[in-house]
């Protein structure tokens, strides 16, 4: 298992915190409501453990917006919600009185837009703090089990063939997870929680570790 030092993990958690802050600001503007941010719970875990964490307590399918990034740091970012909550978010974003079938029709398109904004805000914090340049690919909408959503082969296949061989080993996938929650003080039915997941191959984690060490060395 690949380990970050305590200080590196603390720094990464702070980057996540910054990213989630920016993402929450974007989301709060969209839902016209405050997004409550829990304390960052950062987990750097292998693929198998990540799939277990994502599916914990969830019998249903999950929905996710996935966005791959390429460049000096390569990886995949996912915004994951329980399937039942995605329609609730769409309802909050669009209209209270919209018929369920209309909401369902608009679900994919709306979540893609939301996911795109949130993930970009989130990843921008990484570009602010790390001196690494990377570009985002087009966002995709996915629905399925945690195993399907975090599938490293699929993730790497999107990025190109060069990492496929390295990615066949489950121990070489690392996932950083963080959860968040929206809340309406006057209507607690509108609560949405989800995960932001960053999926890295081992070479990408090494790049990240090297950058963290550089930043910390300068302080």
């Amino acid at each position, binding site marked *: 298992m690949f380990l970050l030092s305590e200080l590196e993990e603390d720094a990464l958690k*702070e980057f996540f915190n910054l990213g989630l802050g920016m993402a929450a*600001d974007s989301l*709060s503007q969209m839902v016209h409501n*405050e997004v409550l941010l829990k304390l960052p719970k950062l987990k750097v875990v292998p693929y198998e453990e990540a799939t277990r964490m994502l599916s914990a307590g969830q019998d249903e399918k999950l929905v996710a917006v996935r966005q791959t990034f390429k460049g000096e740091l390569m990886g995949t970012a996912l915004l994951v919600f329980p399937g039942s909550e995605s329609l609730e978010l769409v309802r909050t974003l669009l209209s209270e009185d919209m018929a369920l079938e209309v909401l369902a029709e608009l679900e994919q398109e709306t979540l893609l837009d939301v996911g795109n904004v949130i993930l970009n805000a989130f990843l921008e*914090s990484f570009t602010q703090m790390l001196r690494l340049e990377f570009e985002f690919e087009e966002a995709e909408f996915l629905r399925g089990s945690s195993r399907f959503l975090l599938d490293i082969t699929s993730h790497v296949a999107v990025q190109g063939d060069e990492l496929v061989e390295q990615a066949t080993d489950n121990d070489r996938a690392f996932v950083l997870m963080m959860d968040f929650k929206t809340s309406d003080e006057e209507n607690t039915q509108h609560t949405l929680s989800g995960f932001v997941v960053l999926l890295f191959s081992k070479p990408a984690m090494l790049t990240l570790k090297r950058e963290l060490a550089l930043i910390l060395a*300068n*302080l």
Partner: protein
Amino acid sequence: MEKKKALIVDDSSLARMMIRKFFADGFKDWELLEAKDAQDALEKSEGVFFHLALIDFNMPGMNGIDLAEKMMERQPGLAIYLVTANIQERMQLRAQSMGIGFIRKPIDLVKITSAMQGLA
């Protein structure tokens, strides 16, 4: 000349290290007291007079706004800035309504300098 004192409260070691570096680079005549959360801050700051407090919002236990309230009770008129990644409008308005300054993370020398300029 006696150094001015600033209280830095943040559960992130990185954030505290960054602030420490900015003070070391630009404000050498300041003495910093660091705390990792509100409880730690309240214990360490007992009986100490501060010229400035930089407080994170999202921390284990008591949040930064509640800590700021306690610090204002202890030392009315203390210049307090909420230093946070939570940049939502409601958070900024909450700070503003309490007379607390707001610094958006990531913190940098410009933001620190700007906050210091507001001090008497």
